[in-house]
């Protein structure tokens, strides 16, 4: 397997991991106005994400950074072409990012409400925009022979793009609800499971709809038709979809969340494998697509970066798992009284 292909796989995996991790806090932020009824419950939301959200977000920085390092031409075309969408994503993440630190710093209901609103917008919008962006990547965007994007923000808001946006919102909200079930107790925990249960059928239906839509709107299935064995990847999201419902019904929060992670990760990988070897297909002409071949870095860079990744990524995963284990317990009233709590 050549370096370009190895990096393509790593690139896909990085995006999948980012969606699995930041997905739960973006989902949780989206659910804030719907599930948190009291001030204490709102604080539980913030503290449920507190030890994790920033470390989760770094997977986005890494995915973007790796796109830049391994496929610089794709990075350049993608970020400049999807300018408006990415700026909206960026601003949403910026306003989300400050909520955690700011909210508890002034004892005023108006102040807290402001940041709660920012958390909601800063969670819902990124989910929607990431879904729109990736659906459009799966579908292909109008890039011409000079790799210039011949469209606007509204080009991306086509039906398939919007379907992808809604898909991500549903996936992340479901994922966030299960995280809340892990990190809460009593009535809130029950409501978290109930919310996951309510979202599940909509999400499952939407996944099916999205897959069918993909058959008509994209070339995602062409790789799978050529190598049908690859369809085995669908076992991950489908299996996860079934298991998450089973575990949630048994109130096994971690297991349900893990299965939900499989749904998200599996969906992302399905899409990425579908566009291989293109990273940014062109809807104008396949010859204009950004591919491994026409956008990869030099072999020297790819091999050095591979060495760096093989050393550092396992270390990162190890200490992030340690972090999740250290702070796995539900957020209790005592935790809210803790001096440094959000």
């Amino acid at each position: 397997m050549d370096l370009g292909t190895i990096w393509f796989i790593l690139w896909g995996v990085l995006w999948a991991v980012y969606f699995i991790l930041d997905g739960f806090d973006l989902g949780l932020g989206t659910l804030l106005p719907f599930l948190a009824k009291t001030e204490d419950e709102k604080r539980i939301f913030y503290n449920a994400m507190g030890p994790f959200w920033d470390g989760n977000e770094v997977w986005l920085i890494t995915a973007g950074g790796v796109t830049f390092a391994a496929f610089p031409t794709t990075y350049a075309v993608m970020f400049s072409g999807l300018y408006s969408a990415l700026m909206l994503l960026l601003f949403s993440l910026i306003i989300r990012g400050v909520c955690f630190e700011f909210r508890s710093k002034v004892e005023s209901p108006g102040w807290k409400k402001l940041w709660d609103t920012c958390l909601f917008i800063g969670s819902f919008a990124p989910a929607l925009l990431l879904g729109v962006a990736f659906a459009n990547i799966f579908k292909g965007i109008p890039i011409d022979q000079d790799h210039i994007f011949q469209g606007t923000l509204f080009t991306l808001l086509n039906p398939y793009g919007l379907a992808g946006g809604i898909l991500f919102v549903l996936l992340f909200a479901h994922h966030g609800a299960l995280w809340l079930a892990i990190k809460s107790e009593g009535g809130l925990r029950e409501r978290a499971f109930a919310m996951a249960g309510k979202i599940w059928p909509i999400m499952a239906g939407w996944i099916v709809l999205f897959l069918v839509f993909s058959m008509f709107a994209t070339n995602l299935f062409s790789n799978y038709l050529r190598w049908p064995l690859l369809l085995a990847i669908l076992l991950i999201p489908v299996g996860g979809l079934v298991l998450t419902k089973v575990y949630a019904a048994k109130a096994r929060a971690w297991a349900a969340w893990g299965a939900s992670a499989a749904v998200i990760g599996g969906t992302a990988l399905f899409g990425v494998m579908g566009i291989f070897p293109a990273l940014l297909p062109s809807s104008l002409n396949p010859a204009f697509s950004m591919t491994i071949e026409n956008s990869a870095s030099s072999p020297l860079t790819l091999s050095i970066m591979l060495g760096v990744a093989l050393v550092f990524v396992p270390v990162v995963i190890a200490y992030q798992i340690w972090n999740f284990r250290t702070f796995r317990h539900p957020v209790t009233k005592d935790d809210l009284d803790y001096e440094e709590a959000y």
Partner: protein
Amino acid sequence: MDVLMLSRLQFAFATFIHFIFVPLTLGLSILVAYMETKYVRTGDETYKKMAKFWGKLFLINFALGVVTGLTLEFQFGTNWSRYSMYVGDIFGSLLAIEATAAFFLESTFVAVWVFGWKKLSKTFHAVCIWIVAFAANLSALWIILANGFMQNPMGYVIRNGRAELDSFYAVITNGFAWSQYVHTVVGSYVLAGFFVMGVSAWHLLRKHNTDFFTKSFRIGLGFALVASLVVAIQGHTHGNEVARVQPAKLAAMESHWETGKNVPMYLLSIPDEKNEKNTVEAFGIPSMLSILAFNDPAAEVKGLKDFAPEDRPPVTLTFLSFRLMVGLGTLMILLTVWGFLKRKQLQDNPRYLQFMVWAIPAPYLALQAGWAVAEVGRQPWIVYGLMRTKDAVSPIATSQVAVSLAAFVVVYLLLASLDIYLLAKYARKVPA
């Protein structure tokens, strides 16, 4: 206003705002770690309170550093796509390493530190903030290695219409970049020291918890005294590097027009960029510029006129920024020396304490001025000698950038103001 100008303004604005918050992160993380370590080793609860008090300010500041940092990674692609395509082979890797090796470490362990006071052992909890300090300073290294490549490209070969990596070793051992790095982080330590001193001085003037704030002041003082001297001395050697590899920038820094030997330095110069001269040149120190640039009074220092006008950086801005930085740097040395002499009788010197409160913005201005020298002085090049900034911008609609620039100005000024408001609010609280 075209795409190029708007993109320049946007990048400059976004970076300047980011760099309000970053230096304090770099330096204060070390000070907080030091305070907490003293607590662990002595059991003295005052140091625990200090770690929490200054730590809270650290965290308020850190939040803005994080969110404004996101923008920068995006911006290379959004607004400078041609640049990204041209040097991504090298530049992109450095950014990816910054994220993988440093950002993950920093963001994971800062959260552990915030939430882990009761869950972890005293020692391990202190280790966490040291990890944060290490990771923050490590991330600065990688981004400055990347900037260093822009300033003094090496380890590359031009192939396939772009700069491709030829020697990773050369890229990461780029002496110019390391010199920039040391200068930046040590400057950041001055800032952190002045922040702690200034806030402590405010409390000491009001006789709040004098033991706590005297101890804090002295920690800030030691840090800032050493750092302000080192940054000046090392700044000189960095200046030698600039003279060697970026002669046009050096000439602009001093508004030096005519190539010559035994070049004096004028304490007062007023540049007249349009007419390629200085309208005023007064208080000249003989051969000083030759000495400063090359450690040799007879050294030849190239003047701006040696460079075609399109190869010169904006002179007035570079010149003023440099003088501002050096002036403030000198002031800060004087203030730290004064503090050192009065360190045992701080409360008997209210005038000094008041100066230290007013001096809080000084290192902020100095650091921004320094970066202005580095980046404005590098113009017209985005990669020195290889690619011009005007050829690097993305082929996108002007309206998009106009809107995003306006959004940045509004959102950033709002968030920065709120952050500064919160910093001031929590800085004023008196610890029990």
